[in-house]
């Protein structure tokens, strides 16, 4: 596979941006308003969405995996790493699947909401595996509601970013 240098450079920039956004959002104490584990704005998903829609499947997956790995190296939390991996991959694969129906069946909002909700599903599944306790499933309903709302916000942000971004990419 031949990788264009421009794509490679864009991936690096996007990874850096996603990493910065992940660190930024970990300083926002959203947990005080919604006392649930794993509640966050999902700002890094704006980058994943942009990468998926402007660069395609493989570059976007690379950006996602690099971000999760680098975040693990910076925070040193292995549990956090597994949780992000579980959530991130389910979200990414569901968004890639939804993209097949874009723009006919889904708009960017549908893709983003699906990704955000599947992120919760993935995280709860990972928490289920890690804690071996079925009660964790009941976190899913409030998590789905908050992540769905955040999905709308990230879609709005990604839409604006993509409009500006597309002129630069091609």
């Amino acid at each position, binding site marked *: 596979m031949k990788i264009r240098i421009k794509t490679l450079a864009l991936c690096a920039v996007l990874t850096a941006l996603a990493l910065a956004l992940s660190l930024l959002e970990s300083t926002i104490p959203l947990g005080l308003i919604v006392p649930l584990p794993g509640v966050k704005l999902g700002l890094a998903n704006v980058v994943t969405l942009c990468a998926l829609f402007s660069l395609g499947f493989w570059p976007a997956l690379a950006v996602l995996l690099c971000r999760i790995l680098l975040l693990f190296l910076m925070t040193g939390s292995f549990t956090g790493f597994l949780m992000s991996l579980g959530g991130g991959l389910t979200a990414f694969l569901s968004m890639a699947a*939804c993209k097949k129906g874009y723009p006919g*069946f889904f708009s960017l909002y549908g893709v983003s909401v699906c990704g955000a909700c599947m992120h919760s599903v993935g995280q709860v599944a990972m928490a289920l595996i890690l804690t071996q306790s079925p009660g*964790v*499933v009941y976190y899913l309903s409030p998590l789905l509601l908050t992540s769905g709302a955040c999905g709308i916000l990230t879609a709005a942000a990604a839409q604006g970013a993509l409009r500006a971004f597309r002129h630069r990419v091609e």
Partner: protein
Amino acid sequence: MRRLKKGDILISAFFLILAGAVFFSGMLRPSGRLTAIITQNGKEIRRIELSGLTSPVTITVSGEYENVIKADQSGVWVEHATCPRQTCVHTGKLTKAGSCAVCMENKMVVTLVGDGGFDAVAG
């Protein structure tokens, strides 16, 4: 491009229904006599029958961090914890069967179980 598509509504509705279904399946579970089960790394380390308590009890779960759990007749809660995120403390008091407080950092879960037992419903 800005307009919402049919799929957007459908996918949102799907996740709303899923959230509702999970919520109601949690509401339907029997309460009655409550038992608090504390697990760490998937292994049960303590089981307390709440209705049998005459005075509040305190349990300390050690590990990478420390969780101090309190239980009385009406429920169970994490009093304080040394973990950085404090999610388990913010969860507050558990009073309904099926609810739980999780400390991901310590892989510790406090679950309340009703008469019917957990596995009967959750499979």
